[in-house]
């Protein structure tokens, strides 16, 4: 009766694991063949890469004065975009949460809209908004707002779905309505996570907005593109170093804050 059962052949020879490894390797090989990626080309061009690095090795430090203003603009764009996106995302997050909204229809429609928004890549959004509102930081702010809305709403409703349901029950039993339940039982449980996710999204947006300028959506990216297309690699180097410093500072700041919160 109480014996250890024999393993099947599939379990004994790890057939499943081996099969998955083989399939994945084949997929990798086929996709590199079909896209025509030539490895020899990659290595033969390595010299060019080092030549470029060499030209960047002498940064034009004078250029720093020009760069400061657009870098600040980039951070401001990210801050505005994240804030607007978050403000709009909060009501949607509550509507999409399974433990708050019983109606499958409301939840389904909300989630469908959110999924739709999330499928739009930020670069596409930027191109779109540059076409609509014209070149400049306004397009960048709109892009980041919509991008953060998609991301924040998902992170938020998933947080709301993990809360304890006991306090909600207690509020309901005390005669509270939906809004009172959200304010008194839900928000205290999620607020720290919400702030943490806001900071995380802000961090991502600072990084993203450096690239957005490439499409004319304002910020430091505009200058990055200008220097590259005029082959002023000494200026490019300054911009990259400046972006690096700003991103590292903001990342570590938001990380420290988030660790304190959770």
């Amino acid at each position: 009766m109480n014996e250890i059962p024999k393993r099947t052949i599939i379990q004994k020879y790890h057939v499943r694991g081996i099969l998955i490894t083989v399939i994945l390797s084949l997929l990798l090989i086929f996709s590199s063949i079909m896209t025509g990626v030539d490895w020899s080309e990659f290595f033969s061009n390595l010299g060019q890469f080092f030549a470029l690095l060499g030209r960047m090795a002498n940064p034009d430090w004078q250029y720093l004065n020009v760069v400061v203003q657009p870098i600040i603009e980039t951070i401001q764009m990210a801050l505005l975009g994240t804030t607007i996106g978050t403000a709009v995302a909060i009501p949607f997050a509550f509507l999409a949460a399974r433990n708050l909204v019983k109606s499958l229809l409301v939840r389904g429609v909300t989630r469908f809209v959110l999924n739709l928004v999330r499928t739009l890549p930020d670069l596409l959004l930027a191109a779109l908004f540059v076409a609509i509102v014209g070149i400049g930081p306004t397009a960048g702010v709109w892009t980041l707002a919509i991008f953060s809305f998609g991301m924040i709403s998902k992170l938020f409703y998933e947080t709301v779905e993990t809360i304890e349901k006991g306090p909600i029950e207690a509020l309901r039993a005390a005669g509270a309505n939906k809004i009172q339940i959200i304010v008194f039982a839900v928000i205290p449980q999620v607020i720290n996570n919400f702030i943490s996710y806001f900071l995380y999204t802000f961090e991502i947006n600072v990084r993203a907005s450096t690239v957005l300028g490439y499409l004319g959506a304002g910020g430091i990216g505009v200058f990055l593109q200008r220097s590259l297309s005029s082959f002023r690699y000494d200026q490019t180097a300054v911009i990259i170093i400046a972006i690096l410093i700003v991103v590292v500072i903001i990342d570590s700041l938001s990380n420290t804050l988030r660790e304190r919160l959770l």
Partner: protein
Amino acid sequence: MMTKQPLISFKNVSKIYNNGTVGLKKVNLDIFQGEFVVIVGLSGAGKSTLLRTINKMHNITDGDITINGESITPLKGKKLCKLRSCIGMIFQNFNLVKRSSVLRNVLIGRVGYYPTWKSVLGIFSPEDKKKAATALQRVNLAEKIYARADELSGGQQQRVAIARVFMQNPKIILADEPVASLDPLTTNAIMDDLKNLNREFKMTVIVNLHSVPLALKYADRIIGLRAGELVYDKTITEVSEQDFKTIYQEEGAIR
């Protein structure tokens, strides 16, 4: 003399859950103002279901429940909130908002009496704040008023829950296994708190309990449920200890 009107009255109440489980089967029961009723029975006998039909946390599938002669079955929306705001509820897991202060948790008992905008902005009247302090003093937790709820022990959390219920100024208190996760000493303190509310303010208290000795110690009247049916209903003076054997009999063992 006219017969006294019951406060809560169950008439042929049945509850079948969506998955087919029978919660209650044709329950007829009258509970009077000021009684301290203890409901006993095995797990799954329908004790929690019975309690939760009184404040419509569960809807019944058949029959009718009246409170003060008025049927609660059709109540919805605002009227339902109003009904619930004068019925207090105590839970096994206390159900406090752990990250909020004790004071805020106690004031939560009052939100049903406020318009949404006022409560959301945290505007509570000075009388209610004073009442919250009194409520905490009653359960010996005055010094914890500004502490966060999760800093308290289990017994203390349940006493905050009692203060929260006291804030509601309820006519009826429903307590669902209020002491199941507490040690014996704290258990007595919590039961005493409930008994005091019953004595001092004539609040009707209905408690689900697992423990027979506790039921015998505190109840005015004991009700037994088995598989959703009301199988026992006697006032404390009539109860004998042998009676509990039938209540706690396994379903299959009934002759």
